[in-house]
């Protein structure tokens, strides 16, 4: 395709044409409204856009409601302000110092705070912010107390002063653009789908070998760095630093910008920032009621566009102007690691309260074996899978894989050792395309392009190529099961654990799935499949075990196990006569 052709294709996709128009409008704006007031509003918009793009890492991508972004912003402002006034440093030093200060705080509080969930995390970050505010107000000798510090210098780079108005506005948007590019680069790569999976389906993320704590920490730290950078720009623009930069209204603004613009859309953050900085100005003539009108506009926006303005734009586009189907990326070959690793389970026990779900299981799965696990509901099959995959911790016994003991290891580490799994109840990100859902499992992948290539190869093998760009939530159960299987396969596991993969599939789909599994097994992949459907299992399994009451009651070739009277009694239903009648 020619360069122009590529550009046309880009324009036709998503809401890109609209974004380009918006960006041009934004760039042209000061030419029409070039007075210092408009330039200042645009400068402030750029500053808040930068802080909001940063906030999207932790709030949008990692899905954690942090209330500390205003604190990182304020801390950056204080660091830059103090260094400018007291040490006379220029922007080339105050700017990185502000980022470092915010980053340092993030590192310090990460340990106690990041392991908290949902609203506990929100309140803990709020508490951190309050403590920082308290310090700023009361440590008068350094921070100037509630009066703050006046006389912060204008932005000066290596002795060159950047005047307010045009130069400052361009610098701020230059840095905001740089920040946007960095964020785009980061989340447009493998981090994007991984974040989505971690946010929406944390269990599945861990099973795909994603280290959630590390990813959360990365997001939190990135947020802090962006917040600190924006704070430095703010203090050199306003030229005074006082505790107001640490107070809650800034946090509320950033939250509102992100929610109104769109939680993960960079264009949304910019749109939201421009809008929220200008909104109160438009209502100025209402005098003391202008903030009330601002609140009303905020409320109206979230009611009308609950997924953010960018979300609303995308939905409108999909509704009124459906995109032509995109061509699929070229498939890339997969690497399947045919290792000689053996899974060895010894005297494994797991109980819930008084119930022994797994009650002393000894089981060895040799390399290249295709094992079917059967048993009645509640016989311990799923628990066994969860124990192997690390989603549950055993109460006694051991699991060895390859050369090491894996019981008690976190699920992500087990996945990294080459064990992949699927779930009985599907754990996909409904709003994300099949392609990205599958790519999220590519834990070794370095960039999204190659992950997409591998995903396309798998989707072709599994008959999903036609739906690659559709969101998973829109697919029938059979296709979603296969998408989850593809996600488990993309990292090229040595051992694949499947928990009722045939549930909800039609007869035809079952046959095709069994053929796929059979082929994978021939290629050297070890399988352990929990399933009710014996016919399905016998199509590829070389060995069956039957569980009852958390113990293995039969183990052998499929024929042998199927005809075992104990198995018939325990699983196929007792008394057998009725089963025959039925």
């Amino acid at each position: 395709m020619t360069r122009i052709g590529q550009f046309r294709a880009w324009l036709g996709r998503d809401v890109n044409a609209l974004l380009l128009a918006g960006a041009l409008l934004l760039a042209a704006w000061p030419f029409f409204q070039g007075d210092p007031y408009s330039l200042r509003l645009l400068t402030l918009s750029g500053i808040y856009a930068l802080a909001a793009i940063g906030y999207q890492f932790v709030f949008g991508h990692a899905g954690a409601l942090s209330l500390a972004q205003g604190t990182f912003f304020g801390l950056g402002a204080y660091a830059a302000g103090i260094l400018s006034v007291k040490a006379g440093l220029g922007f080339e030093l105050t700017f990185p110092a502000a980022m470092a200060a915010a980053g340092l705080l993030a590192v310090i509080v990460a340990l106690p705070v990041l392991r908290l969930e949902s609203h506990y995390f929100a309140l803990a970050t709020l508490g951190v912010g309050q403590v920082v505010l308290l310090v700023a107000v009361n440590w008068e000798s350094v921070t100037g107390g509630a009066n703050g510090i006046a006389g912060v210098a204008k932005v000066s780079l290596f002795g060159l002063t950047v005047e307010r108005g045009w130069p400052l506005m361009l610098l701020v948007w230059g840095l905001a653009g740089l920040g946007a590019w960095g964020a785009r680069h980061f989340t447009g790569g493998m981090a994007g789908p991984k974040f989505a999976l971690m946010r929406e389906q944390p269990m599945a993320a861990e099973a795909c070998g994603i280290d959630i704590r590390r990813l959360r920490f990365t997001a939190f730290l990135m947020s802090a760095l962006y917040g600190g950078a924006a704070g430095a720009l703010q203090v050199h623009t306003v030229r005074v630093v006082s505790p107001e930069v640490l107070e809650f209204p800034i946090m509320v603004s950033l939250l509102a910008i992100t929610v109104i613009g769109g939680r993960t859309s960079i264009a949304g953050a910019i749109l939201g920032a421009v809008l929220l900085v200008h909104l109160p100005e438009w209502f100025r003539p209402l005098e003391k009621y202008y903030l009330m009108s601002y609140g009303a506009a905020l409320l109206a926006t979230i009611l009308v566009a609950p997924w953010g303005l960018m979300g609303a734009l995308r939905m409108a586009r999909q509704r009124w102007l459906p995109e032509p189907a995109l061509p699929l990326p070229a498939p890339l070959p997969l690497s399947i690691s045919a290792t000689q690793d053996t899974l060895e389970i010894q005297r494994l026990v797991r109980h819930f309260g008084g119930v022994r779900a797994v009650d002393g299981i000894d089981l060895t799965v040799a390399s290249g074996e295709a094992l079917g696990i059967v048993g009645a509901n509640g016989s311990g099959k799923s628990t066994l899978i969860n124990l192997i995959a690390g989603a549950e911790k055993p109460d006694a016994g051991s699991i060895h894989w390859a050369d090491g003991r894996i019981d008690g290891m976190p699920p992500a580490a087990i996945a990294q050792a080459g064990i992949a799994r699927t779930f009985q109840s599907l754990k996909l990100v409904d709003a994300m395309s099949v392609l990205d859902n599958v790519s999220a499992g590519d834990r070794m992948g370095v960039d999204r392009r190659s992950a997409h290539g591998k995903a396309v190869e798998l989707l072709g093998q599994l008959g999903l190529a036609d739906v690659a760009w559709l969101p998973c939530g829109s697919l029938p159960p059979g296709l979603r099961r296969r998408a989850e299987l593809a996600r488990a396969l993309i990292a090229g596991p040595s051992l694949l654990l499947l928990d009722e993969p045939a549930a909800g599939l039609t007869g035809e789909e079952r046959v095709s799935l069994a053929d796929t599994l059979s082929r994978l097994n021939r290629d050297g992949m070890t399988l352990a499949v929990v399933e009710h459907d014996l016919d399905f299992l016998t199509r590829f399994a070389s060995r069956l075990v039957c569980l009852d009451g958390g113990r293995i009651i039969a183990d052998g070739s499929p024929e042998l196990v199927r005809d075992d009277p104990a198995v018939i009694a325990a699983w196929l239903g007792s008394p057998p006569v009725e089963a025959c009648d039925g």
Partner: protein
Amino acid sequence: MELLQLVINGIALGAGYALVALGFVLVLNATSAVNFAQGDLVVAGGFMGVALAGLAPLPGIALLPFAMILMAAVGLIVSVLAYWPLRDRPPVSVFISTIALGIIIQNGLNGIFGAEPRVAPAMFGTGRFEFGGLALSHQSLAIMLVAALLIGGVHLLLGRTQLGRMLRATAQDSDIAAALGIPVGAMVALTFALAAALAGAAGLLLANQFFVTPADGGNFIVKAYIAVVIGGWGRIGGALAGAMLVALFETVVAAWFDYAVATGLLYAALLVILFVRPEGLFGEAAGRRA
């Protein structure tokens, strides 16, 4: 003796906070969403008392039912505006919508009443009881009594009535409740009304002793939030205990340390509690739904 006096003061203040936290946790249970306007509703209740006293110069106890009924109506509006359209969205949407609503309430009150502190009428009158060197103002006693009555009333409502059972079923699992034929929407609206009425009562009670200005809401919501987290997310008894703990920090701990240090200690304690017991001091009731 002095300690005892401070504890008494703390309990009176904590009784007020407890009403705020109770409303917060009721909405939380029914909707999994944080109503961040709860603090501004307290302030609105205070100004409701000021306005009602301007119309009819009666003691606070006579105005209380009217203030609560009017605030319940405000609560219905809150649920219709800020919760109902967002019920199928992530809870954080409601967090933002109620923040927006709080901005509207705060600045609306600032526009109507002005920024100066106002005082609401006392429940029964001014004066104080003294016994053995301890003092208890009539208003403090009134706060404790009214709060105890209201909390007891809510307890009976939830525990002993058909309506209460429906409210609790909705709070436990709205899908199952809907399947059982309970009008979930009406129950949620009613919960918002109840929460706003409690906030209004707290506002009227506290606005006599501590005055009220339009900007006070932020302080109340943060205190309620802390109380609910300390007490265990979604746990009603825990929220009440948490409110008492917060108030005792403000009275008893602040009598030994600087206010700045006492506040710092409160947040430090909060962070330690979260670190050591992430599910709150009294365990979690609402689960990880939010």
